[in-house]
């Protein structure tokens, strides 16, 4: 289909972009545009103006803080850059996994992490990673800046807590040394998006799971943590029984009606897969040697 008419602006700076956003009601930001443009072609979204920030410099860094406790990633870092980053791989492998599994090479080379998270597509991979890592978004408006925690970010299908007149400048991820994480994805055979995606993050002392974060994307209308699974894991010994018991809880904290149902997979099947894939994702990151 043809998109509706829209105006196109290229921003010179973050401030310029913010000014353009405030001058043009309903304008949308684009960087890679891999999320928004397809929806404009299908008529799902028709912004009157696009503000292109794809060429802004200085927003694509991937770096650790000096004390090694936080990982900062610029909003314009591409999925390919994140997937290839040794730092991300070592400190937040669930995000490297998610970025590597996202779309195809073209999308990974053009699409950016900030755009992806602000777009709020519940079928996409990075949301589960950000939730599992308990990361946050750094957001700027014309007059202020703020931080949005991952757990507050996703409000519904294509709806996030990022306001229309704000720009995501980066993401921040707390990191610690004795954590393991990973992302397991089951691709929708049509779209390549996640039919079910599970991100897991565990802090262990080698025998006991001290802290757990498990998050889902794709299967549900909004990406979300799975607290019942986390509760079942925390404080438990790393055993097959623990994993089995925890995975069995995968479906129960998801609200009624929150599982997606479409031509490819019913809600019931997605719920079943979520249990299976939670279990498999846990096995992916834990070495059980008995």
């Amino acid at each position: 289909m043809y998109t509706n008419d829209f105006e196109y602006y290229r921003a010179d700076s973050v401030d310029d972009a913010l000014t353009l956003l405030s001058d043009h009601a309903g304008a949308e930001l684009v960087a890679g545009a891999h999320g928004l443009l397809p929806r404009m072609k299908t008529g799902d979204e028709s912004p009157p103006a696009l503000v292109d920030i794809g060429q802004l410099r200085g927003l694509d860094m991937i770096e650790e803080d000096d004390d090694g406790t936080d990982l900062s990633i610029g909003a314009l870092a591409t999925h390919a850059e994140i997937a290839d980053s040794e730092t991300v791989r070592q400190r937040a492998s669930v995000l490297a996994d998610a970025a590597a599994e996202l779309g195809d090479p073209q999308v990974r080379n053009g699409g950016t992490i900030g755009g992806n998270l602000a777009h709020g597509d519940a079928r996409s991979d990075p949301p589960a990673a950000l939730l599992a890592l308990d990361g946050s978004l750094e957001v700027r408006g014309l007059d202020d800046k703020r931080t949005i925690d991952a757990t507050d970010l996703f409000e519904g299908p294509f709806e996030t807590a990022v306001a229309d007149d704000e720009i995501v400048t980066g993401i921040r991820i707390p990191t610690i040394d004795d954590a393991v994480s990973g992302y397991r994805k089951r691709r929708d055979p049509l779209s390549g998006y996640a039919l079910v995606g599970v991100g897991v993050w565990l802090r262990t002392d080698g025998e006991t799971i001290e802290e757990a974060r498990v998050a889902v994307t794709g299967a549900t209308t909004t990406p979300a943590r799975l607290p019942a699974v986390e509760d079942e894991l925390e404080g438990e010994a790393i055993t097959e029984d623990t994993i089995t018991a925890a995975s069995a809880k995968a479906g129960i904290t998801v609200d009624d009606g929150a599982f997606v149902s479409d031509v490819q997979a019913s809600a019931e099947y997605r719920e079943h897969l979520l249990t299976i894939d939670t279990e498999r994702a846990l096995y992916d990151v834990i070495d059980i040697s008995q």
Partner: protein
Amino acid sequence: MSDADTNEATESATEPDGDGSGGTFGSAIKRGEDVPLLTGDGEYTDDISLRGMTHLAICRSDHAHARIESIDTSDAAAMDGVIAVYTGEDVVESGVPNTIPTAWDLPGLVQPQYRMLATDKVRYEGTGIAAVIAETPHAAHDALERITVEYEPLEHVTDPVEAVERDVPPVHDEAADNVAFDFELGEVDATDEAFADADRVASVDLRQPRIIPNAMEPRAALADWENATGKLRLWMTSQNPHLHRMLLSAGTLGLPENKIQVIAPEVGGGFGSKIYHYPDEAVTAWCSMQLGRPVKWQATRSESYLTDCHGRDHVTTGEIALDDDGTIRGVRVETHAGLGAQLSQFGTATPSYLYTTVLSGQYTIPAIHCRVIGAFTNTTPVDAYRGAGRAEGIYVIERLVDVGARELGIDPAELRRRNLVPPDEFPYESAAALVYDSGEYERAMDLALDHIDYDELRERQRELRDEDRYIGIGIGNFVESAGLSPSGLAGDLGAQAGGWESSIVRFDSTGSVTVLAGTADQGQGHRTTYAQIAAEELGLSVDDVDVVEGDTDRIPQGMGTYGSRSASVGGGSIARGAREVREKARRIAAHQLETSVDDLEFEDGEFRVTGAPDRSLHIQTIAHEAYLGHDLPEGMDPGLEETNFYDPENFTYPFGTHVAVVEVDPETGEIEIERYIAVDDCGEIINPMIVEGQVHGGIAQGIGAALYEGAVYDDNGHLQTRRMDEYAVPHSTQLPEFKTDNTVTPSPHNPIGVKGVGESATIAATPTMVSAVVDALEPFGVDHLDMPLTPESVWRATEGDQ
């Protein structure tokens, strides 16, 4: 490349007899057309622009079934950039014939009115009701939203069984019960007797979902009406420009055929969907005639989903009668075939003759009876899609053989083997009214099974089941009727067109060769394979031969490209024409070398006097002489070209065996394809690389149908799978590596021994995949699963919930 041919085929009297041995027939030379196609230099319909060109967008119904109460186009017409808005009434008032015709009649067939734009009712979502012409495509599409149509909605039906069995308002008043035809083939009494006498009967209820063709290039047309000469030039995405010329003349526009030029430039895939005369291209031409300006219509991908003819849509009950020793005694089939809301040209032939006549498969089955009820539904018209009819028929017989094997407790490969038509039975007349030309079915089947070490793999399958791992082995034996000829037989069965093909083989005066063929390439590689055929016959290099297709003013006659016919019928015509050219050249050579034609040998393009090899003339030199005309045999006309019409004496019958090995994860229903083996016998092979490419693409589409594809209509009669993220075309990453191999059993009646390969793999792959998955699920008591075999449906089957 595939394995070397395991070519122990019988010697054929009909091998390409270029005693000139150009050496090109049978070699894997690269496709000359690929460089422009891959570098973006290929010119497709939408790439062509004419001065003063305007753009058409078509307003389509968003109702599945409704009476049109009013259409208000005034707002749209008043928009900037809009030149004109037309409705179906305008077309009626113009006095053109305005009839999209069917091209295949059947006894008792109901043929309702089918107009270019609907005036009374809309009968499926996507029915064209108005046409907007604007200065830009964008303006035309924007104006569509300003057309106001008031409808009186009617109850709709999308399922072919419901359409005839439920009390619903008919799609067409002419067919109150929605039955377009009620077709039978075979002997009902003999079949009943066979079933009564047989030891066992097995049966299967199955559905073959609607497939959406998804050609890479959506349909397009560019019409240029020339008032001064009364001539219409129409560029369009066509698999058969001459057929379109004829249908535009006799069916929709009423112009004399000699005032219509149809040009098919590069065409990006068809799979059947570009055979047909749709309303849209006729509307494009009609609008140009109204305005005296060129008009371009380029379908969007969404329009393709809604309006390109869909394929398949069968609901079938099949039964197979067997004796305890595995002898198949009879097959009985009843099918409801969805035809959609209108009869597309071959929408009647596909589920009748093309389907029922292959129900014998590769097997000696003494009694077959099949009934097909063709049903109108409020859906996109259904017509031939790659494998048309044959794919559906082979699917049924292969599923029946599998359920028969389960019933008898006989290995499915063994049951097949016991019933194969043996090599010495050819030509074999089946109980489904076909005469198979040649075949060595067991050789191809053995070769395919050897590739996977069949017996060992069965053993391994049993071992793995003990470890709760479930692999499945699927076997698909197929034979297809390709070429759709001869014309007389096709006519007897109801065809409103011939089954011949036409070509011109022309030496130019300086020795190059032009081949003009009535077929029309959409990616098949005709420019390479046809050059190989002509070069072989004329003792030349392929570089000496230029192949021209797709222009009715340059190529006087033709039937087009569909039904795996181009190599066998088109190629056969070119070979025959080239041979006539060669024989004329031989007579000129004999005259100028002062010897008799019988004393001339032909090799590498050179006519040599037997016993005096230094006395020779090259065929390209003779071409020059033929156009000089100074020294020709007494009474011979100058020039060196031949026009050939070739009407084959029979179909050709490609065959083969495909084998798939899958593993099913019972926890999730996920299917992993471990191995895929394709052994195809398409007779003589013109270019092994192109054959392999056809097989690869065919397998992909066949696997697509088995595992992923399937159009779905929602409760409102709206197409639910209308976008690429809603309708699952297989991705390359979802497909395994294919192992391809060939046997070569020439067709005895084709001039170059070829059988065709365009549809084979699509026909074979679908039953092969389903067979493999159902085999894996045997421990779960699953005898059949309907396509598409999504992981969810497999998981539900393992849970005992079919």
